[in-house]
């Protein structure tokens, strides 16, 4: 491949990594806006999502342009595919952050209080997962990527815990149902972000090793066939 192509590919990889940390930043702000019921921070999150959307389109069209013009093979092709898929996940994560911020706009601190601790823990876990996934992508580090999978289960467990709490509270009193739904929505979005982070980690493993680790059984079966 030409040096020109290598440079373009490297620029694109950097651009995608920059977008990833922008998304990470947005998620952090979204979590803070929810926990502190900070309306101005929530507005900021919604505003910054536009940057992510723009960036997503730019990255995607650049991937397609490079594929069409240079017809890369091997690891270059894998990198482009991984960037394309991660790009998509990042955009969805930003959307989840926006959803959380929208809840934050009309939430009050009191409504949160019973689940506040769990949400805080969930937020920390999810942000850690996302940071690891992004770090793994930036450095192509398989070990870091694998560390995200274990955390995903932890996040799922926390999500279940919140649902149970809300169900129990809802059975006890029908007051404050709207607030409880808000909390549920925040938890749901956090859980989704964790799933997308897992996807990114899987794509990083694909990028580094060429192995598809998603849906463990299917991949194993395909290998047998």
């Amino acid at each position: 491949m030409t040096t020109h192509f290598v440079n373009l590919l490297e620029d694109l990889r950097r651009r995608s990594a920059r977008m990833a940390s922008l998304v990470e930043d947005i998620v952090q702000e979204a979590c803070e806006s929810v926990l502190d019921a900070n309306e101005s921070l929530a507005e900021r999150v919604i505003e910054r999502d536009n940057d992510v959307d723009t960036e997503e389109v730019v990255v995607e069209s650049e991937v397609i342009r490079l594929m069409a013009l240079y017809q890369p093979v091997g690891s270059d092709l894998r990198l482009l595919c991984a960037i394309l898929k991660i790009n998509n996940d990042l955009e969805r994560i930003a959307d989840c952050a926006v959803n959380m911020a929208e809840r934050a706009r009309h939430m009050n601190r009191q409504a949160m209080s019973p689940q506040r601790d769990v949400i805080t823990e969930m937020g920390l876990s999810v942000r850690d997962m996302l940071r690891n996934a992004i770090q793994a992508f930036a450095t192509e580090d398989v070990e870091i990527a694998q560390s995200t999978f274990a955390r995903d289960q932890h996040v799922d467990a926390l999500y279940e815990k919140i649902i149970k709490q809300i169900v129990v509270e809802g059975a006890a009193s029908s007051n404050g149902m709207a607030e409880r739904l808000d909390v549920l929505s925040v938890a749901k979005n956090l859980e989704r972000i964790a799933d997308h982070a897992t996807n990114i980690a899987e794509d990083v493993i694909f990028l580094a090793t060429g192995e598809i680790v998603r849906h463990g059984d299917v991949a194993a079966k395909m290998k047998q066939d």
Partner: protein
Amino acid sequence: MALRLGRYFWKLFLANALVMAVVLAVSVWVIVSQLDQFRQEELSRHLFAQASALEVAVRDRFDLARAADLNALAKQVGSTEHEGVRVTFVLADGTVLGDSEANAAEMESHADRPEIQQALAAGSGESVRWSHTVAKYMDYVAVRVGSGDNTLGVVRLSMAVESIAALSKRARRLAVTMAGVSVLAAALLACALALLWSRPIRLLTEAARSISGGDLSARVEVVGTDEVAALGRSLNEMREKLSTHVDTIDRQRRTLDSLVSQLREGVVVADAAGRIVLVNAEAIGMLQPTQASSEESYVGKSVEQFLPHHKLQNLLCESAGRTSSGEVTSPAQAVNETKRSFEESTQEVELRLSTATGDRTVLARAFDVRLPADEATSSSETAAAQVGRALLLTDITELSKVMQVKADLAANASHELRTPLSAIRAAVDTLHSIDGKADADQIAQLIDVVDRHSGRMEAMIGDLLELSRLESGTGRFDAVRVSGATVLKECQESFASAVAAKKISWTISTPTEDVSITTSAALLGIILRNLIENAIRFTPTGGEIKLSVRKEENAVAFEVTDTGCGIARVDQDRIFERFYQVEQARSGPNRGTGLGLSIVRPAAAAIGARIELESAIGVGTRMTIHVPR
């Protein structure tokens, strides 16, 4: 010495050998051909002489009638005297009278033979041609028999060219053998010369190669004064200069490295292409606390791989007012550019990072820097400078804490002062509004309120003054010899009524040994009074307070132990801050000024004492002051 012969050796050797071989070959060829020619001439002269002798012998019997005699003579002379010499007697009309090789009677007329025609005409003739009679190339020499006007015939002697060649072959073989030996000798000589001339060059090459490989200790042995020796000397000089330069550069680099790595600020420098150029350990500690890699391992990586924070990535990659190319052409322009853009390009962001030592508040400042141009991209004429970006990370955790405390102080002080003040205002307003008929009791009560609250304000202002005096260090405290037991006794006396009012059991234990210390009695009093006040305030009715003093190795320890509410772990660090009060103290009935412990700390520092705090919620608190003796 391992003999690795280079191309130069082969060039020298082959050139010498070739020249010698060509010279030899030409000389041998010239000598041999000269020799051949000389022999040829010699031979024909010899043949002529023989032919002339024969002519004299046969002149008077040269006719057809005595052909048999002549033939016998021919055979005799041809066979015996000279091996390979053929003798022929021919009459003037061409009839062969006798021949040493063939039968004369069967031979054709020899009148048309060129040598015979020449001899008949001029007296002698010679020719080299193919003989049909003996089927060989022959050299014929003919001499006329008889005088010019009485020609009888011709005596012809001939010799095969082959035998002439055979004769010269020996000489030729000798010449060729000589030539071969000479060529061999010449080759050896050439080899020796080539070795001799190429050796210094080879040594120079080896030295130059080891210098370029980084071994600056390599020296060349220089012998003689020729051009190669001059080259060797220049090489040695170059090596010395290079070694000095490298040492200088290395020292500068190490100085710079150690300075950068010892900086308390994190430093990250990236070039225009977004690649890390320099990073120090502090920055790695702040940004990559989980990865224990060396500084060098990050150099050359992209900014995105190293910096996990989007804000920092933006700071480091996006210069304010950067020209699109990022390249500045002339150095002077570059300097101006950098000066100008340093102000403009500086951007600041404050952010929280979680590092190995917990969450830190970091002030990140980024500005443009001029980097030396990349060798690969710069053209030699325009010493193009590259504009990179430097990121400076300053840990402002402590600073921001101090700022917070200061901000809190102002807010707290005004708040704390306003509370009693508003109580006083309310009482005074009530006093204004009530008429003279008012209850004397009520008036007394109101005055009591004013009294109590103004007293509290006074105490607070007094504390504040004392605190600022302690903190500014302007107050003078004279050290005197005091006994620990006496100090405790004084404290006991002054707090006796307060302790009695709360029905607190109050024990003092003093050792029998001497616990005297030389220190400021006033400051020690302030510390103990504040601690005891707190102990009384937070110990419920019926509780217990223990005062004790004991001798330690280098200090005397005063201990105030209570069975009060205790202090939560999270508050233990903060209770020494001004106006900081734990929740119970703030809301409870027995609130203080919030300044007591903040006075204790600078007071203890002033006398060099150390404060130790042990506390558990609901169990009690033990404060220990270790005063150096």
